[in-house]
C-alpha cells in the first residue's frame, strides 16, 4: 500500500544499517537450495551429502571473510541469537571461574538484554560509556577488567554513529589485565563492509548477520575460536557442534555465504563508493543551515548520523518518507527510544532528539544523496515555518 505522495518520487532507501534488499545472486542461491539441493545434511545418502557440501562451502565463505577456520563458524538465526549464544553460553560455561561481564552502554539491545539477563542469574555487569568520539577507550576497558572478569563484549561498528571501536587494542588491554578474559565482538554492522581478521583483532567470539549484507533475514553466525567452550541455548542433536542443534537452515546459510563472498570481493570498490557518498553528504549538509553531523570523523564510511536541531527525528523522518526517502531515527531496533550513544558522546538534548541515521549500501547513488539533501533542506524550511513549539 503506497501513498500517492510517495509514488510521485522514486524511492531512495538510505537505511541499509536497518536491513538491505536481498541481491538477485543471493536470492538465486537460496532458491536453488530450496528447490533443488534440498537434502538434509545429516542424511547418510547422496542428497544429504550434496546439502552438506553446500553448507560447508557456505561455512568456508563466512570463515574466510573473518580470517577464521571453517570449524569455528556456527550458523544461527541471526545476530540476536549469536550475541545471546556468545554471552549466555560463555558466562554459563565459566561460571566457576568468575562472574564479571564487561560491555559498553552502546551495544545492540541483544547484547544488553543478554547481559542484563545474566545479571539476574548472579553475574556482575559493568557498562562502559564511549568517549566524546563515540568510541570505547581501551583504557576504560582495562580499568573495568579484574581477575574475576569472564567476558568483554564490545561492538566493532556502532549502529547509530558508525564509530569504529579499537577492538584490537581493547582486546590487548583486557588480556594484559586478565589473560583468561574472553573477547566477544558484535560485528554485525561491520561484516562484509570493513576488512575483518579475528586473529589480528584478538577476539574469541564474533557475531555476524546476513540481512545487513544483502542476504535474507533469519541467518547469522557466531565465530567461536577453537578451544573456547560455550553452553548451548537449546538442546537436541549434534548439528553445529551441538551448539545450535536442529536441522541446519541450509538455504539461508548458503545465501549468507554467497552474500559474504560477494561483499568480500567488492570491498575495495564499495569502500571507495561509501567514502565518496559520505563526503558528498557531509559537504552538502554543511551548506544547509540547520543540519549538523554527529558522526565523528574516522568512522565507518557507510553510516552518517546527523541532526536538524529543533525538528524531532520522527517528524523529519516522516517528512522525508513523504518524498520517498527512507532513513532511520536512532536504530531501527529500538523504535522511538532515545539514543544513549549520542548522549554518551556529550551531545545536547536538541541534537539527540533530532538525530537521523543515513546508511548506504554498495548500490546507493549520488543522486540519492542529493535527493536526501534536497529533502532535508525542504523539510527544514517547511517544518521550521510550521513550528512554534513542538512537544
Amino acid at each position, binding site marked *: 500500500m503506497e501513498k500517492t505522495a510517495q509514488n510521485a518520487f522514486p524511492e531512495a532507501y538510505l537505511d541499509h544499517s536497518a536491513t538491505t534488499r536481498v541481491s538477485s545472486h543471493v536470492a538465486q542461491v537460496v532458491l536453488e537450495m530450496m528447490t533443488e539441493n534440498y537434502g538434509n545434511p545429516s542424511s547418510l545418502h547422496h542428497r544429504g551429502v550434496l546439502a552438506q557440501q553446500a553448507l560447508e562451502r557456505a561455512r568456508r565463505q563466512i570463515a574466510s571473510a573473518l580470517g577464521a577456520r571453517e570449524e569455528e563458524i556456527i550458523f544461527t538465526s541471526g545476530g540476536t541469537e549469536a550475541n545471546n549464544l556468545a554471552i549466555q553460553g560463555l558466562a554459563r560455561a565459566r561460571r566457576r571461574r568468575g562472574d564479571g561481564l564487561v560491555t559498553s552502554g552502546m551495544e545492540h539491545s541483544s547484547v544488553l538484554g543478554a547481559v542484563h539477563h545474566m545479571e539476574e542469574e548472579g553475574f556482575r555487569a559493568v557498562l562502559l560509556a564511549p568517549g566524546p568520539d563515540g568510541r570505547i577507550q581501551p583504557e576504560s576497558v582495562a580499568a573495568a577488567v579484574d581477575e574475576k572478569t569472564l567476558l568483554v563484549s564490545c561492538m566493532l561498528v556502532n549502529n547509530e554513529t558508525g564509530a569504529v571501536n579499537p577492538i584490537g587494542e581493547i582486546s590487548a588491554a583486557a588480556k594484559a589485565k586478565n589473560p583468561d578474559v574472553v573477547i566477544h565482538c558484535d560485528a554485525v554492522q561491520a561484516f562484509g563492509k570493513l576488512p575483518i581478521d579475528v586473529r589480528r583483532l584478538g577476539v574469541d567470539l564474533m557475531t555476524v548477520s546476513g540481512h545487513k549484507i544483502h542476504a535474507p533475514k533469519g541467518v547469522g553466525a557466531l565465530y567461536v575460536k577453537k578451544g573456547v567452550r560455550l553452553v548451548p541455548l537449546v538442546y537436541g542433536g549434534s548439528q553445529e557442534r551441538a551448539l545450535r542443534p536442529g536441522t541446519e537452515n541450509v538455504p539461508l546459510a548458503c545465501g549468507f555465504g554467497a552474500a559474504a563472498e560477494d561483499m568480500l570481493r567488492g570491498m575495495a570498490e564499495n569502500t571507495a563508493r561509501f567514502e565518496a557518498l559520505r563526503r558528498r553528504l557531509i559537504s552538502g549538509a554543511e551548506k544547509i543551515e540547520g543540519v549538523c553531523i554527529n558522526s565523528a570523523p574516522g568512522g565507518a564510511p557507510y553510516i552518517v548520523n546527523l541532526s536538524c536541531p529543533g525538528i524531532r527525528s520522527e517528524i523529519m523522518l*516522516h517528512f522525508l518518507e513523504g518524498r520517498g526517502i527512507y532513513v532511520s531515527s536512532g536504530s531501527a531496533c529500538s523504535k*522511538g527510544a532515545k539514543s544513549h550513544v549520542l548522549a554518551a558522546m556529550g551531545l545536547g538534548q536538541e541534537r539527540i532528539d533530532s538525530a537521523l541515521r543515513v546508511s548506504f549500501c554498495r548500490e546507493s547513488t549520488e543522486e540519492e544523496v542529493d535527493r536526501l539533501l534536497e529533502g532535508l533542506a525542504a523539510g527544514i524550511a517547511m517544518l521550521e515555518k510550521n513550528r*512554534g513549539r*513542538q512537544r
Partner: protein
Amino acid sequence: MRELILIKNGEIALKGLNRNSFEDKLIKNAKRSLAGCGQFKFYKAQSTIYCEPVEEGADMAGALERLQKVFGIAALCRAAVVEKDFEAIKATAAAYLKDTLRAARTFKVEAKRSDKSFAMASPEICRELGGYLLSQYPHLRVDVHRPDVTVTVEIRDFGAYLHTDQLPGAGGIPVGSGGKAMLLISGGIDSPVAGYMMAKRGLELEAVHFAAPPYTSERARLKVIRLCEKLLPYAVSVRLYVVGFTEIQVAIRQNCPEDLFTLIMRRQMMKIAERLAEENRCEALITGESVGQVASQTMQALAVTDIATRLPVLRPVIGMDKTEIIRIARQIDTFETSILPYEDCCTVFTPRHPKTKPRLGDILKAEERLDVAAQIDQAVREAEVIQLCADWPRQEEII
C-alpha cells in the same frame, strides 16, 4: 442430530408495532456477523430467533461467539432440535448433554411448554426427564436451588429444544435501527469505547480520523484502521474517513494564540466531521470526551467545542472515569491497540498552557484571523475512504 442457536431478543420485545423491523435488522446483522462460520438460516417465532445451519460442518462454537457480540440479543444458547416426542427427548438429552452432565455434580430440569398441545405438562416433563437422567448418570444429585447445570427443555411450535444454561448476549438494540452517526476517532482509548457504546444503542457508525503527516505516521493511520476493525463484531460495518489535517493545524498554529490552539483545532475537527456527516446522512457526531480528563475537556472547553456544530454531539463516556473506560476497552479488545505509542494529531503542537476556561468571544475573535474555509473544503474533498465490514476480509495488514 440437528443443532441450532436460539436467540432471545432483549429490549426489542418491548417495541410495539416496530418490533418486526427491529427483528429484521437484528437478523440481517447476525447473518453478516456469521460470515466464515458457514451457511445459516434464520426464522423467528415467539420472541425467539432461530439460527440454524443449513449444512453439515458449520462452526457452531464460532457462531455462538460471534453472536454474543451482536447488539439486540439478550441471551442465546446452542440447542439440540428434537421431535416433540418424550422418548426422543429422553434419548437425545442423555446423549447430547453427556459431557456437561459428566462434569457436573448437581443438576435440575426446567421445562417450558409453549405448545400446549404437547401431552405432558411442564412439571411432569421435569420429573420424568430428571428421573431418567439420574438413572443414566448415577453420580448426579438434584439441586433445584443452585444446580451446577440446568437442563432446559422447550416445547415450541416447530419442535422441542434441549439445552443447558444460556449465555448472556450483548444487550442493546440492533445496529442501524437508530440511524447513523459520525465518530471522531483519534487512536486513543476513549473514542473506540464511545463508538462501541453508541453502536450498542442501535447507531450505525461512520468514523473520521485526522492525520497530520509528517507529524503523524503511517502506523498511526493503520492503528486507527485496526481499531475500527476491532469494532466490527459489534458495529457490523464502519466507514472510515481519513482526513489530512496538517495544513489546517499549521494555519491555526500561525494565526491563533497558542493557549487556544487545541480548542480551535477541535472546533475545526467538529466542522469537518459535520460536513462529512451531512454528506453521508449521519445525524449526530460521537466523541470520546469525558469531563475534566484533559484541558480541552473542561465544561467550558466542551461548550465552545459543542457550539462549533449544528449536529448533536453524543458523548457516551462523558461521566466515566478513565478506569471505567479502560475496563470496556479491554472487554472489546481495543485497549492494547489504543496504547500503541504513535503520535496522533492532537498531540502535535500542544500548547504549553492551554486555556481551561475559554470564553467563546475570545475564540471567535481568534478564528477571525483564520481563513481555513478552502483548506476544509479540500480536506473533506480529498478524505480517504476506507469501508470496513464484518463480512469482508481484513483490509490491510498491520505491522
